């Protein structure tokens, strides 16, 4: 009998020592979902001057009382460039709230003051946190920059403008997609769609692009300002390849891949296309070319950017900027 009791007591004691899960609970925190919202640690962005060109970053450090959605909005004082970072966490830190100098889309940030606003959309009556940083260096682009129109018209380039059109490089940091300058067309051509073009060429030979077309992206910033719309104006690109390597493009024997981009909005658009896809036209059909029919970026010898607009649409105006090739992904403004 005593042994039975002893067994019973020992068993009870043995299994009765369950760890009290005082700081461990099932499921999501109720505090996160239904608890009050407060900022436990104010925003700290570290350096108030940031040189992105040297790899510096802006890290947003902040601690909240609960997991909740937050939105960090950074806006350039002059460029109007905008970058937003969103998340759902109790803490903002290097893990989830870092700005490396990029924008969501064109325009890009310039050397300017950037205003920071942090909001909490799910927290009614929550404070709006503000701060600012000064950009002293722009982020370095990854890719093959052809031109950002910052250094004027190259002697190897060719320009065409109708007699009533002004087509040239303009410089105004507040209007450029990137940097200070951009290419501009402005004029009324009542008799023809052609407005003007600029043919960008390397100083010699090819652009020295990599050979693989499958992971190379062509990128250009484009902004239609007047005569805008998918029926009214577009850019026509010619990508000319020197298939035989003689340093001269012959349209009768070599590949010219064409691409159209019709305007949609009056904002800066990022035109981005995988080089390998240039062999297809806008309808998805394989283009007929006079060369070997292969998209070979290493043989690219010139890019013609041609602005066309509906003659019935009145004055046509558009900007182009920052022609760059990137690897593996489209350009990140």
């Amino acid at each position, binding site marked *: 009998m005593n042994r*039975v009791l002893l067994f019973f007591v020992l068993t009870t004691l043995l299994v*009765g020592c369950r760890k009290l899960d005082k*700081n461990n609970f099932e499921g999501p925190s109720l505090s996160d979902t239904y608890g009050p919202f407060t900022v436990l640690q104010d925003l700290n962005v570290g350096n108030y001057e940031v040189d992105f060109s040297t790899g510096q970053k802006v890290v947003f450090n902040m601690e909240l009382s609960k997991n909740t959605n937050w939105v960090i909005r950074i806006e350039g004082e002059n460029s109007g460039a905008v970058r937003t970072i969103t998340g759902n966490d109790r803490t903002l830190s290097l893990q989830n709230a870092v700005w490396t100098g990029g924008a969501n889309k064109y325009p890009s940030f310039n050397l300017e003051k950037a205003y920071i606003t942090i909001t909490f959309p799910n927290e009614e009556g929550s404070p709006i946190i503000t701060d600012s940083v000064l950009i002293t260096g722009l982020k370095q682009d990854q890719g093959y920059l052809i031109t950002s129109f910052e250094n004027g018209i190259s002697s190897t380039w060719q320009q065409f403008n109708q007699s009533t059109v002004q087509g040239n490089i303009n410089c105004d940091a507040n209007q450029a997609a990137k940097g200070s300058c951009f290419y501009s067309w402005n004029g009324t051509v009542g008799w023809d769609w052609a407005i003007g073009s600029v043919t960008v060429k390397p100083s010699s030979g090819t652009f020295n692009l990599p050979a693989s077309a499958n992971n190379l992206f062509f990128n250009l910033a484009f902004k239609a300002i007047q005569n805008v719309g998918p029926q009214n104006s577009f850019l026509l690109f010619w990508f000319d390849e020197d298939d035989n390597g003689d340093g001269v493009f012959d349209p009768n024997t070599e590949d010219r891949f064409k691409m159209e981009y019709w305007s949609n909005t009056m904002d800066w658009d990022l035109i981005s296309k995988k080089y390998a896809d240039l062999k297809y036209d806008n309808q998805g059909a394989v283009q007929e070319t006079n060369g070997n029919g292969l998209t070979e970026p290493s043989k690219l010898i010139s890019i013609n950017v041609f602005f066309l607009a509906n003659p019935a649409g009145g004055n046509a105006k558009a900007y182009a900027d920052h022609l760059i090739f990137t690897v593996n992904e489209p350009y990140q403004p």
Partner: protein
Amino acid sequence: MKHFTTLILVLLLTHNFWSQDRKFQVNGAARGYLFAQKMLIDDALDTINAPRANYGHTLVDLGFSIFPNSSTEIISNFRIRNEFGGFWGGGVSFNVRQLTLNGVAGKVVKYNLGDIDVKMTPYTLYNFQEEGIVNEAEVFALRRQIVHYDMFYLPENTWRMQGAQIAFGLKFNKFLKAIEFKGFLTRQRPTNGISIPERLYGGGMVTWKQNENLQFAYNNINLFDLKETINDSIRYSNNVHSGSMKYSRPINKTLKWGLDAEAGFSNVKYSNYQSPLAPEKQNDWFYDASFNLEDKKSKIKTTIGYKDVGANFFSPGAQTKRVDFNKFPAVFQQYTNAAVGRNVTIADMMNFNAGYSYQISEQLMAYNAAYNNVNPYGIATPNRRGVYLNMEQKDSLKFKKSFVQVAQMFESRGSGTNVKKAFTSIAAGMTLGINDFFKWKREILVNFGIRHDLTSRGGEVYEKVKLSSTLIDAGLSFRLVGKLDLLLGAKYFTAKGNEFITERTVFNTVNNFLPTTIDLSETTYAAGFRYKFSEKNQLLLNYQLHQIKNNVPAGINYGISQFNILYSLNF
């Protein structure tokens, strides 16, 4: 079909001849059930759903026991059901309700093949009672018996499965009295050959009987997917081990005390699941120990115990609910002009309108916190620890039955917060033979039961919980004349407060808490007449009125009236 009918007729005609040699027995049940139901709801609230639902059926369950030899029995049970409104075979269905082969091999091993009823311990395999009952009136119980009979929910809390089980024992002259072995293996689910593997469920018990007073048992049960039944290699397995002990010792001629204990653990594995929500494994344990005192004279047994069931203790056989609260009732599934799905009510559970379980569920099923928040998954409800006290008096001279049950439980792990919920449950009931008191010949049976539950949690304003509910059952059975009884019954249920309803993934992990306000009352009244042709043969005419008041904003008040005729015969 013709062959089947011929076979039945031949068997019936030859019944007497064979039964003399005990080669053959026929038993069964028959019933006729007719309903006329009406939805009682404000006309402005519902103009699109038909307010009446009338239906009925007659059925016969023909059971045959065949004894081909002295150690073998073949049991079969065929159901022929005819829905009212169908003629010349329309609406008639034939089903095999049971096919079982029982026997004893070598006069040692008992075996059952086919449809078997299995049960182990309350923490391994146990079919616990559904919600909404606390010593209910006979007029309700008669209806519920139909549900339990059809779903094979036997009073022994078994689950009906398909498979095989064996049992054998060894008796000893020295050191110990006996060792008994029991085991079963059932098929829970066939594979679809593509994405769902075949699932089996098997278990066993080894019981060591030291003497008349002391016994130990080892229990093990497994729910698992069979390997290589699909090309994909996902596999689920749930393994529960437990050890149990029973000890009893007389104090004197009338008093006896005892100890009961069970402790064990569960182990769940989700192998090769692609979902990022799938935990690799879930382990947890439980124990339940109680002391009891039994007075043979007064027939009162008192039990006091303590249990602790881990939050990740998952035992599908012990935690599968009888009623699936995710399913809409069979009658008046939708109501209001918005065609809102109607929730299962206490009356639906009684009237065979709810969705009932016939298989073990590896997922913790949805439950209604208003009806039972203390032990929604039975005794083995995970994440509960605390004390309980049960007092029960079996049939005595004064009381047919009486009981008191008290439980004070707590979460062992908080739900979304470190502050833990407390659960209090108090239930009491009695069935009284008034005629026994006054020594009347005419039987008057009164029954009464009450259960009050309270869930509470303190802490910050946003995490506070307070939910109370009360269920009252009352009934009267009065012999009017001859074999005619008047049956009266009432159920009253009310629940008020707030709770965070736990939402789980298919892997039983908690992924959300839904704040819910409850302000609900349900009343069910029933009155009827029963004519008992014999103990096994009766006719019941019954009117029932069920009303729900849902006082939360946008809550719908409605009622359902029902008239039904039930004729039942067991033979």
